[in-house]
């Protein structure tokens, strides 16, 4: 009588491990086969299929993907978009979160609502007016790789959109975090005659370092992965980021699957490395947001 539940639970536990391991293996299949395909010549997998044992392993696909996708250039573009965006997003959202959470006045909740709602709007809904706004804003071609004479097609346009969109999410996370810092800390500084900006830079910001790290990791992958804005705002220019460079690979009628797999792996590499190296921050940032955002 007493034994039965124990035995049953042992069986169910074994079943649990089998199930999870099986699912984990299934989950790995696309990435592992993409890596495997990327290392093999196209002619060979065409002939023997993707399951066959390799006759030759080669880096040629990676080399071709890199040169055909112009990845030295597009990767540089991505970095010139992503890094300034993250710095601006984190700066703006910290100041905003600081102001609304530490010195709450009437607009506090209203502003947070505005930001969160804006953050959830589908990008497709706002892009046409943005497109027109950027097109109508003159911008010297000297400062960008385009010849439109306007902000359209420049990295700056994409940076602006990212900042406007992502600041909402980060403000939400940061203000939730800042609320947990005791008010007395700020009050003590005020009594000592510290200005608001000093309180921000010297007291609050250092305490927010873990959250900022988490948000930076999360934003890096989101912005790096951005495809929509890259396609609609940078389509014609020389300023394309790396995500859209895969779309250029291969011809209209012929596509080398192994080449695409190699290109996908190259493009995925930075985010995978960031994820594996900073997993804790990454998931921390995501769940911080999930608590309220």
């Amino acid at each position, binding site marked *: 009588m007493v034994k039965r539940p124990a035995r049953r639970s042992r069986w169910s536990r074994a079943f*649990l*491990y089998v*199930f*999870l391991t099986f699912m984990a293996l299934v989950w790995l*299949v*696309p*990435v592992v*086969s*993409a890596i495997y395909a990327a290392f093999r010549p196209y002619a060979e*997998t*065409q002939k023997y299929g*993707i*399951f066959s044992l390799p006759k030759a392993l080669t880096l040629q696909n990676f080399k071709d993907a890199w040169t055909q996708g112009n990845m030295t250039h597009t990767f540089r573009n991505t970095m010139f978009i992503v890094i300034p965006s993250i710095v601006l997003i984190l700066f703006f959202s910290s*100041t*905003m979160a*600081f*102001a*609304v959470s530490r*010195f709450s006045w009437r607009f506090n*909740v209203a*502003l947070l609502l*505005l930001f969160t*709602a804006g953050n*959830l*709007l*589908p*990008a*497709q*809904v*706002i*892009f*046409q*007016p*943005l*497109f*027109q706004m950027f097109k*109508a804003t003159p911008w010297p071609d000297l400062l960008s790789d385009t010849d439109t004479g306007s902000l359209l097609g420049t990295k700056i346009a994409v940076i*602006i959109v990212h*900042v*406007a969109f992502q*600041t*909402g999410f980060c403000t939400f996370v940061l203000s939730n975090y800042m609320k947990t810092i005791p008010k007395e800390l700020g009050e003590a500084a005020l009594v000592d005659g510290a200005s*608001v*900006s000093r309180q921000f830079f010297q007291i609050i910001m250092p305490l927010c370092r873990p959250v900022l790290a988490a948000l930076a990791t999360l934003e890096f*992958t989101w912005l790096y*992965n951005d*495809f929509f804005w890259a396609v609609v705002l940078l389509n014609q220019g020389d300023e394309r980021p790396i*995500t859209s460079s895969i779309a250029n690979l291969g011809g209209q009628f012929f596509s080398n*699957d192994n080449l*695409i*797999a190699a290109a996908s792996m190259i493009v995925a590499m930075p*985010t995978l490395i960031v*994820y594996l190296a900073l*997993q804790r921050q*990454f*998931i921390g940032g*995501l*769940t911080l947001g*999930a*608590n309220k955002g």
Partner: protein
Amino acid sequence: MEAEITAPVETAAVPPVGRRRRRRYSQLSRGDKITLWLMAGIPTLVHVVFVWVPAFMTISLSFTKWDGLKLGSWQLIGFRNYWAIFTVFDGKFFPALFNNVLLLVFLSLCSIVGVLFAYLLDKNIRGSAIYQSIFYMPVVLSLAIVGFIWKSVMYSPRQGLFNVVLGRTEQGNQIDWVGNAEKIFEFHIPGLDTPLGLTKNFAAILIAMAWRHIGYVMVLYLAGLKSVDPAMREAAAIDGCNEWQAFRRVIFPVMKPINVVVFVITVIEALRAFDIIFALKSPPGTKVLGVLVRDNLVGEGGGQVGLGSAYGVVLLLLCLGFIIWYLFNNYREVET
């Protein structure tokens, strides 16, 4: 100045919340007030100008006819764009809308699977971190990359994994997973010329999306489960709850904030889907609203700003309901 700064000590004794807040703000010096206004004002301005103003402009543009070339050359035409969407272009609009609906239903099912994974991984599993990393890995890839990976190694007609497993790699009997717009099921709605249904290639895209969505939900849910007080589970066990009852009656209600987040993420993802379909060059039968908006604005046959904006507004209205519901839920927590 001096007197103002000491004020908090007095009010701290009996703080009527509203008044105390206001006074604290008014204690600040002029310079500090300006700093605070700038701190909150500049980000708000950027957000409003580049998110909300365009949203309202889209609404206005949806009542116009405009080729998008010259500012000011638009003509007001009232609701004609909406009329066109629901009648002339119904053959495009309703299948796309239906694809969004299918996506929503399917991703909701995936969310349940994600919750199940989270629940199982929360059971003191040895190597739980490894399982987590594996299930979560697709989430760090962009949906466009997910599309490329699945298209090139899973769905490729000649050498793709599915066809290899099914033995359908020969010319002639190959299955073209991404190109096949045949319907798995379809039905007619009276008044609509085009039947609605699920095309085979859209189903293929759904499966690729599931790969990513399940891990996302799993991580969100797992974090929530970790914060559930173990005493509650024990209490449930002592009261003789079986596992399903404990989940249904104890854990699920406690997880309400996370449930809301998961639900909203699912809905929003389903409504704004774009990347994966566009990355696969939006094959016939896989159009969703997000792709239609874009097609009318820039793609081939683009330059129909009014019509594209009207599609956008329909999408906006669909999202807005959920956004408001979400904020309403959130708002109550922010208040407390």
